[in-house]
C-alpha cells in the first residue's frame, strides 16, 4: 500500500461511506435504490462469505489474474463494472440488466466459464443476488491491486461528503452551559466543561493581543479591571473591534491565505508597486466590518459588482497577487498563461472553498470529486482575467481638494514673484539711467541665440532650444553671428525636457545623451573658417562625464554641462560655427541644448548667464534701442541678479512642478486593463480568447473549448441559476461575478462550504487550531472536523447575520471555552493530549508581526499610521503589516518567526523556536533601539530620579500589563545595581527593558 493511500486510510473518514467510495459513476441517481446503503452492506457480506471464492475459482484466472481476456478485468470492482471490449456486463442493483448472468446461465454467448461446465444454479443465483445488492467488493481479488475508480464522474456519494452538505438548521445541544459554543463542546466531551476562567488581567491581554496584535496599555488594563458592571467583557471586545489596529491584524491573517506579495517573483522579482492597495482594502474591510459576501464579491469581481467604483477595484488583486515569470519565450506564453489562471483558481479554491482544486489540473482529483473537466470549466472563468497595474485615482474628492490647495499656493507664489518683478523693473530703469555707463566689464555666460541644423527647434524661456527629433545625420551644426564680442570660452548645456524620452535630456534610451566631439570655428574676414582650439575641458556635476580625450561628453537623463576655454581669447565680434558629432549615429543626441560664450576670463560653469544681446548692451554700455525687441531678456538678467527674486522664483518653480496628480498604480485582476508586460520575446499577447480542456495539463494537448462552469460536486441546481450578463458595452465579462454568486449560494452552490471554511479560519485564530485543522483542505485528504455540528451551527449563524465578521468574533470570544485559564492539568492532558475537545487553553507564541509590533508598542515607538506604500526597512517603527513583501528578499525577522513564503495560499503557520529568533531579540537594531526608547519612556513616566522599584513597576505594567512580583522586583534591582556598578554610572535600564521584551511571557498569547 502506498504511503499516501495508507495515510488516507489512517485518517478519520466518515466510516459508513468508506466501503462504497467506489460506487460507479455511470449510475445516475435515478438508478440508485433508496435503500442502496443497506443493500450494499448485505452484498458485502455475501462477497466475503462466498462470492469472492467463486470469482477467484472460476473467473479470475482469465479475467484479471494471469490473463485479462476480452479486456475484462474483474480483479477490482471498477473493472467488473467497466466491463470488457463489449462494454459493461454488470449493472449494480440490476441483475436483470446484467448480461454476465445470461452468460453464466448459458443463455447468451460466450458461455461462461469458458469451456467449463456451467456453474450450479444456486451459485448463479447467489451472484445475481449479490449484483442486486450492488456487487460490492470488500477488497480487490488480487492482493496489491488498488481499487481504482473513474474519477471523471461525480456521484451522489461524492456529494454526500460532509463538507459538501447543506448546513440545515443544527440545533444547539441541551446542557447546562449558557453559551451555545460551550454546549456543543460539552456535548462532544460527555458533558465535561471547560477549565476555569482566566483572571481578568490575562483576559484583557489575551483579547487585546488576539484582536489587535498589540499588548494592552496599562490604561486599557485598568479600564477593564475597573469595569465591574455586567457586560465588561463584551464592552472590551467592542472597544478592541473598533480600533484600527484590529483591521491591521486580521488583514494579515487573510494575507497568508491570499499569498500576498509585492513583487513578481521568479527571475527579476520586479516590484509591483500597486499591490499595497489590496492590503489597504483588507484593513479597511475588516475595520468597517464588510460582510463576508461582499468580502468575497469584491475580491473576485469588484469591477463587475461596482463598475466605476475605483476604490473597490484594488480588491481584485486577490486574483493577481501570485508569482509570475518575467522572462518568457514565445513558446512558453500559453503555458505560462495557463499557470497564471491556475494560480487564480487554486487560490480561490483554497481560500474560499478549502479545496485543492488545482490538483485536478493534470488529472481528475485523486481524493476529492473534482474531475479535471470541472477544473477547466472553472478555469474558464478567468479566460480574460489579467494582471494589470493601471494608474487610478483612488480618492478623487481628496485629489480635487489637494489640487485646489495647490493652486492657491501656486497663485500666491506667482503673485509674490510678480510683485518682486514690478519692484525690480523700477530699479532696472534706475540702473539703465544712472549706473549703466559706469558698469564694470561684464563677466559670465552669454547665451547664443543661433539654432542648430537639422531639426525643428523650439525656444524655451531660458534661451535653450528643444527638438523632438534626433538628427539622423548624427551631426548638429550651429552657425551665425554673435551679438557680443571678446569671448574666452564656450559652454554646452544639455537639459532635461518634458518632450524628450522619459522626460530626459537626450534621445537615447532612458533619456541619456552622448556628444562625441565638439568643434568651434570662427569666420575669417575672407569668408573662410578657422577652428578655435579648445582647452581645459570641464564638465558639470549632474552626472555628466567628459569623454576620454576631452572633446566630448555624455550624461544622464538629468542633463549635464561641459565647457572649454579657448586657447586664445577671441576678440571683437564675428560669425561663429559650432559642430557636434553625437553618439549612436545621432540617436544619442541631446534634445534640449543651450550654447553660451564666456565673457571674461573666469570660466565657472555656473556663473551668471545672460542673453547675448544683453551682454552686447552691457559691453557697449548703451540703453537698448527699440530694435532690441526683447526687453524681457534684459529684465530676465536683471531679475536673476536679485537674490530675493531668485528665492521667490525657485519657490514658484518647485510648486509648479508639484501638481498633485492623485494617480497611483493599482494592482487589479480584470478584463478591463492591459496586462502588465514583461520580457516576452516576440511581443505576443499573453491572453487567449478561449480556455481549452488540456490533457495532462499540457497546452499541446487541447481537447475542446471549456465553457465557464462550477464544481459539479457542489452544485445542486442547473448552472443557469448563476447566470449573469454584463450590460452592453461593459469591458468585463461577468464570469467572475457568477463564480462569486455560486461560491456564496448556500442553497444550491458552494455557500455552505465557503461559510464553513471562513468561520473555521476565525475559530482557528481564536482557539489555536481550526475545528477542521487543515483550514485550506476540507476535502478527503484534509482532516475531519472535531466538531462538525458546531462548525455547521457557527456557519449557519454566520450566514444568518449576513456574514458579519465582528459578530462572529463576539460570539466566539464570549464562550467560556475562549476564556479558559491556561492550566497544566496532567489528567486533562493525558485524556486529550491534542486538545481535540478544546477544553484546555494552551498559550501560543505570537506571530512574527505581533512580536515585532509588541516590541515597538511597548517602547512607545510604534507609528500608528494606517495604510500606504510598503516600508522596506525592518527597523521602521510602522506596524509589520506594512513591511515590504519582496519575494526574493523576505525579511529575516518575519521569516525566522514563521511568516510563510507567499507562493501559494497558506492557512496555517508553523510555530518554531529557533536561534535566529533569539538573535533578533538580542542583537537587532530594532530591538536595541526599542529597549532604549522603552527605558526613556519609563523615565519620562516615573521621573528621572524615581526609585528603581517604581521604574521596574512601570516596566512590568507597560510590557506585561501587570505588577512585578516581589522576587521579580528583587531580581530587577539586583540587575540594575550590578549594571550601574559595572558601567560606572549608566543605569542599565535599557538593558533591563530589553530582557522584558525577550521574556516568554511577552512573546506568548496567554
Amino acid at each position, binding site marked *: 500500500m*502506498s504511503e499516501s493511500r495508507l495515510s488516507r486510510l489512517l485518517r478519520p473518514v466518515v466510516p459508513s461511506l468508506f466501503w462504497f467510495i467506489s460506487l460507479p459513476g455511470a449510475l445516475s441517481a435515478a438508478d440508485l435504490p433508496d435503500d442502496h446503503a443497506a443493500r450494499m452492506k448485505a452484498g458485502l457480506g455475501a462477497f466475503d462469505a462466498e462470492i469472492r471464492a467463486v470469482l477467484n475459482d472460476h473467473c479470475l484466472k482469465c479475467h484479471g489474474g494471469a490473463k485479462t481476456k476480452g479486456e475484462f478485468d474483474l480483479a477490482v470492482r471498477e473493472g467488473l463494472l467497466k466491463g470488457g471490449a463489449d462494454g459493461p456486463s454488470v449493472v449494480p442493483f440490476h441483475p436483470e440488466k446484467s448480461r454476465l448472468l445470461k452468460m453464466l446461465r448459458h443463455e447468451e454467448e460466450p458461455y461462461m466459464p469458458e469451456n467449463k461446465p456451467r456453474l450450479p444454479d444456486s451459485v448463479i443465483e447467489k451472484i445475481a443476488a449479490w449484483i442486486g445488492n450492488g456487487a460490492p467488493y470488500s477488497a480487490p481479488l488480487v492482493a496489491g491491486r488498488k481499487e481504482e475508480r473513474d474519477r471523471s464522474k461525480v456521484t451522489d456519494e461524492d456529494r454526500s461528503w460532509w463538507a459538501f452538505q447543506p448546513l440545515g438548521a443544527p440545533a444547539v445541544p441541551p446542557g447546562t452551559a449558557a453559551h451555545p459554543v460551550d454546549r456543543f463542546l460539552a456535548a462532544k466531551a460527555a458533558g465535561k466543561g471547560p477549565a476555569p476562567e482566566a483572571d481578568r488581567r490575562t483576559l484583557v491581554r489575551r483579547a487585546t493581543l488576539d484582536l489587535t496584535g498589540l499588548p494592552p496599555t496599562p490604561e486599557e488594563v485598568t479600564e477593564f479591571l475597573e469595569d465591574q458592571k455586567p457586560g465588561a467583557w463584551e464592552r472590551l471586545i467592542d472597544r478592541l473591534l473598533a480600533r484600527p489596529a484590529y483591521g491591521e491584524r486580521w488583514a494579515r491573517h487573510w494575507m497568508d491565505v491570499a499569498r500576498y506579495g509585492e513583487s513578481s517573483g521568479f527571475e527579476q522579482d520586479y516590484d509591483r508597486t500597486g499591490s499595497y492597495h489590496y492590503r489597504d482594502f483588507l484593513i479597511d474591510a475588516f475595520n468597517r466590518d464588510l460582510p463576508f459576501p461582499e468580502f468575497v464579491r469584491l475580491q473576485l469581481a469588484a469591477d463587475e459588482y461596482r463598475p466605476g467604483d475605483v476604490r473597490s477595484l484594488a480588491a481584485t488583486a486577490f486574483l493577481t497577487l501570485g508569482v509570475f515569470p518575467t522572462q518568457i519565450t514565445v513558446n512558453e506564453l500559453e503555458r505560462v498563461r495557463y499557470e497564471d489562471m491556475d494560480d487564480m483558481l487554486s487560490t480561490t479554491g483554497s481560500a474560499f472553498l478549502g479545496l485543492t482544486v488545482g490538483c485536478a489540473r493534470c488529472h481528475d482529483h485523486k481524493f476529492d470529486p473534482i474531475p479535471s473537466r470541472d477544473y477547466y470549466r472553472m478555469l474558464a472563468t478567468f479566460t480574460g482575467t489579467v494582471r494589470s497595474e493601471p494608474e487610478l485615482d483612488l480618492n478623487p474628492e481628496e485629489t480635487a481638494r489637494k489640487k485646489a490647495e495647490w493652486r492657491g499656493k501656486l497663485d500666491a507664489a506667482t503673485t509674490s514673484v510678480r510683485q518682486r518683478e514690478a519692484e525690480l523693473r523700477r530699479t532696472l530703469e534706475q540702473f539703465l539711467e544712472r549706473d549703466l555707463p559706469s558698469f564694470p566689464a561684464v563677466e559670465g555666460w552669454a547665451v547664443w541665440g543661433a539654432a542648430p541644423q537639422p531639426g525643428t527647434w523650439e525656444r524655451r524661456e531660458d534661451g535653450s532650444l528643444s527638438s523632438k527629433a534626433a538628427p539622423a545625420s548624427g551631426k548638429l551644426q550651429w552657425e551665425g553671428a554673435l551679438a557680443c564680442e571678446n569671448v574666452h570660452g564656450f559652454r554646452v548645456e544639455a537639459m532635461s525636457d518634458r518632450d524628450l524620452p522619459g522626460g530626459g535630456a537626450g534621445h537615447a534610451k532612458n533619456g541619456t545623451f552622448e556628444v562625441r566631439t565638439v568643434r568651434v570655428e570662427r569666420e575669417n574676414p575672407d569668408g573662410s573658417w578657422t577652428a578655435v582650439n579648445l582647452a581645459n575641458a570641464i564638465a558639470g556635476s549632474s552626472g555628466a562625464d567628459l569623454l576620454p580625450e576631452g572633446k566630448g561628453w555624455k550624461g544622464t537623463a538629468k542633463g549635464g554641462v561641459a565647457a572649454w576655454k579657448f586657447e586664445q581669447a577671441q576678440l571683437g565680434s564675428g560669425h561663429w560655427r559650432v559642430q557636434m558629432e553625437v553618439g549612436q549615429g545621432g540617436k544619442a543626441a541631446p534634445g534640449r541644448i543651450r550654447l553660451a560664450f564666456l565673457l571674461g576670463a573666469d570660466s565657472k560653469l555656473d556663473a551668471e548667464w545672460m542673453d547675448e544681446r544683453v551682454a552686447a548692451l552691457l559691453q557697449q554700455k548703451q540703453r537698448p534701442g527699440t530694435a532690441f525687441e526683447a526687453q524681457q531678456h534684459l529684465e530676465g538678467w536683471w531679475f536673476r541678479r536679485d537674490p530675493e527674486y531668485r528665492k521667490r522664483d525657485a519657490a514658484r518653480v518647485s510648486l509648479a512642478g508639484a501638481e498633485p496628480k492623485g494617480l497611483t498604480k493599482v494592482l487589479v485582476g480584470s478584463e478591463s486593463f492591459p496586462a502588465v508586460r514583461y520580457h516576452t520575446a516576440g511581443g505576443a499577447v499573453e491572453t487567449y480568447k478561449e480556455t481549452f480542456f488540456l490533457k*495532462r495539463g499540457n497546452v499541446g494537448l487541447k481537447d475542446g473549448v471549456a465553457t465557464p462552469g462550477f464544481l459539479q460536486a457542489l452544485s445542486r441546481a442547473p448552472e443557469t441559476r448563476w447566470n449573469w450578463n454584463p450590460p452592453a458595452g461593459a469591458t468585463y465579462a461577468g464570469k467572475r461575478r457568477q463564480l462569486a454568486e455560486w461560491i456564496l449560494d448556500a442553497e444550491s452552490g458552494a455557500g455552505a462550504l465557503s461559510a464553513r471554511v471562513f468561520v473555521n479560519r476565525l475559530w482557528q485564530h481564536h482557539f489555536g487550531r481550526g475545528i477542521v485543522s487543515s483550514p485550506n483542505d476540507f476535502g478527503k485528504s484534509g482532516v475531519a472536523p472535531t466538531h462538525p455540528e458546531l462548525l455547521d451551527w457557527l456557519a449557519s449563524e454566520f450566514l444568518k447575520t449576513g456574514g458579519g465578521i465582528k459578530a462572529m468574533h463576539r460570539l466566539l470570544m464570549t464562550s467560556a471555552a475562549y476564556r479558559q485559564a491556561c492550566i497544566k492539568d496532567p489528567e486533562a492532558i493525558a485524556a486529550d493530549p491534542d486538545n481535540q475537545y478544546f477544553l484546555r487553553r494552551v*498559550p501560543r507564541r505570537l506571530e512574527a508581526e505581533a512580536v515585532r509590533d509588541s516590541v515597538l508598542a511597548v517602547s512607545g515607538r510604534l507609528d500608528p499610521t494606517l495604510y500606504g506604500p510598503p516600508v522596506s526597512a525592518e527597523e521602521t517603527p510602522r506596524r509589520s503589516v506594512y513591511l515590504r513583501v519582496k519575494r526574493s528578499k523576505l525579511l529575516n525577522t518575519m521569516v525566522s518567526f514563521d511568516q510563510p513564503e507567499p507562493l501559494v495560499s497558506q492557512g496555517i503557520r508553523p510555530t518554531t523556536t529557533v*536561534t535566529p529568533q533569539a*538573535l533578533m531579540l538580542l542583537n537587532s537594531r530594532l530591538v536595541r533601539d526599542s529597549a532604549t526608547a522603552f527605558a526613556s519612556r519609563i523615565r519620562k513616566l516615573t521621573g528621572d530620579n524615581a526609585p528603581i522599584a517604581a521604574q521596574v513597576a512601570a516596566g512590568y505594567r507597560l510590557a506585561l500589563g501587570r505588577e512585578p512580583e516581589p522576587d521579580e522586583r528583587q531580581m530587577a534591582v539586583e540587575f540594575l545595581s550590578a549594571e550601574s556598578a559595572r558601567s560606572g554610572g549608566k543605569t542599565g535600564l535599557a*538593558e533591563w527593558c530589553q530582557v522584558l521584551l525577550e521574556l516568554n511571557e511577552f*512573546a506568548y498569547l496567554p
Partner: protein
Amino acid sequence: MNPTFFSRREALMRAGGGLGWLACAALLDKTGWNAMAASGNPLAPKRPPLQPRAKSVIWIFANGGPSQVDTWDYKPELQKRDGQTLEGFDPKTGFFPGSAGALMKSPFEWAQHGASGTWGSDLFPHLNRHVDKMAFVHSCWTGSNNHSPALFMMNTGITRMGSPCVGSWVTYGLGSEAESLPSFVVMSDPLNRGLPKGNALNWGAGFLPSVYQGTWLKPSGEPIENLKPEIAGNTQRAQLDLLGRLNRRGLAESPIESELSARIESFELAYRMQTAAPEAFAIHEEPEHIKTAYGIGTQHCGHFAAQCLMARRMVERGVRFVQIYSGGMENQQSWDCHSDLVGNHRGFALEADQPVAALLADLEQRGMLKDTLVVWAGEFGRTPVAQKAAKPGRDHNPHAFTAWMAGGGVKGGVHYGETDEVGYKAVRDKVHVRDFHATLLALLGLDHEKLSFRFQGLDQRLTGVESARVITDLFA
C-alpha cells in the same frame, strides 16, 4: 529512545528549584554525557544505547534525484539494449507518463576504479579515486515518484509534510557536542536556484521539540543574521542570566513547558553562537593547499567547495548533522534531469565532484573520517528509459536509486543490493528508505526501534510503524 526525557527533566527542575541547567553545566565535565542530559539541557550530549561507529554526519543531498544508471550503477545490458522497448515498463513510473521512451544507454564513459574495481562513470573523476572508501547501496527504493513527497520521505521517513527529519532525530537522540553552534545545520544552493521542494519542512523538527530543528544558513550575505552582539559581553551575559531566571519562574506549571524550555535554550545557544559561528564559518583561515584541494574560488565549483569546507569545520567543532543540498529546486535547477541528461548531470557533477572528493580526503587526513559518516543520496532515481525530448532526459523512478556512504564505520569499496539488468527496479537485497534510515541511526549508535517520541498518543519513530532493517553488511 527516551520518552521520559522531559518528565525526568521536569522532576529535576522542580527539585532543583531555581538552579538552571547552565549553572549545572558549568560544574560538569564536558564529557559527562548523561550527567549533562540530566541537567536539563535538551541538547546536552547523550550516550547512545548502541556502540556508535560515527559521531557526525555530512549528508550531500543530490537534490532532484540523480540517475543511478549514469552515476554508480553500471548496467552493461542497458548499454547493449539502447533504443529497445523495455518490456513491463510502467509508463506511470515517472512524472510524465506520456513522454516515456525506449531504453537509453548511459551517455557517459564508464570504467573500473580503485582496488575494489568499482564501476563509475566519468561524471566524477575526483570521486572515482575514493571509491574504496565508499559503501554503495544500489537497491534503494522509496514511496513516491514526486519530489516533495520523496524529499519528505528521504528526510523524515514519511511522504507527508511536517514530521521530524533525520537530522532532528539524530540531534534528539545524541544531543549536540557543539556547545555553541547549532547541532544541525543545512546549507542550500547559493546560486539562486531555489530551495528543495517543501523548503524548510525538509529540515523541520516536526513534533519533536523545536530545538532540534535544522538551522538553515543563508546562502548569501551573513549566513546568520543578527549574529554580532551590540552590547558588551558581560552585560549581555547578565541579561541572559536574568532572562533565564525570570523565564524559569513558574515554568513547571506551564502547559507548554517543553516549548518554553526550548525557547530558554535558544537564547543560550544564540549567545554562544555569536562568537562560535563566525569562527566556524571562517574558511578563509584554511591554508592555501586545503582551499585549492576543495576548489575554493573556482568558477566551476567554488560555491559548493565553500559549503563542503564549512561542513568539515563545523563537524570538527562538534556539529552533529550537516546537510548540503547539491542543486536548487527542480528541473534544470537541480539533478532533476527531465531533459538534457548530459548537460544536466555534467553540470551538477562538476559542481560537486571535486569538493566532495576533497572533503573525503581532508576528513581522512585529519583522522575525522572514521567518526564522520559522509552520505550521498537524492530522493529517488531515474528511469532507464528516456524521457523523450529534443535532448532526452530521464524521468523520476522510485523503484531504484543508488546511495553511498563513506567513513563513519562503514566498509569501503563494497556494494550492497542490485537492480535488474537495466537498472529499473531494485531486485536483490532491496533497501527501503526506512532501512537506510535505520542503518544510519545504527551507525550513530541509535536503535531505530527505540528512538521514539510520544506524540498523538503514539511512540513515533523515524522509521514508522513498519519494520525496518539495519544493513549490518555495510559495517566495518
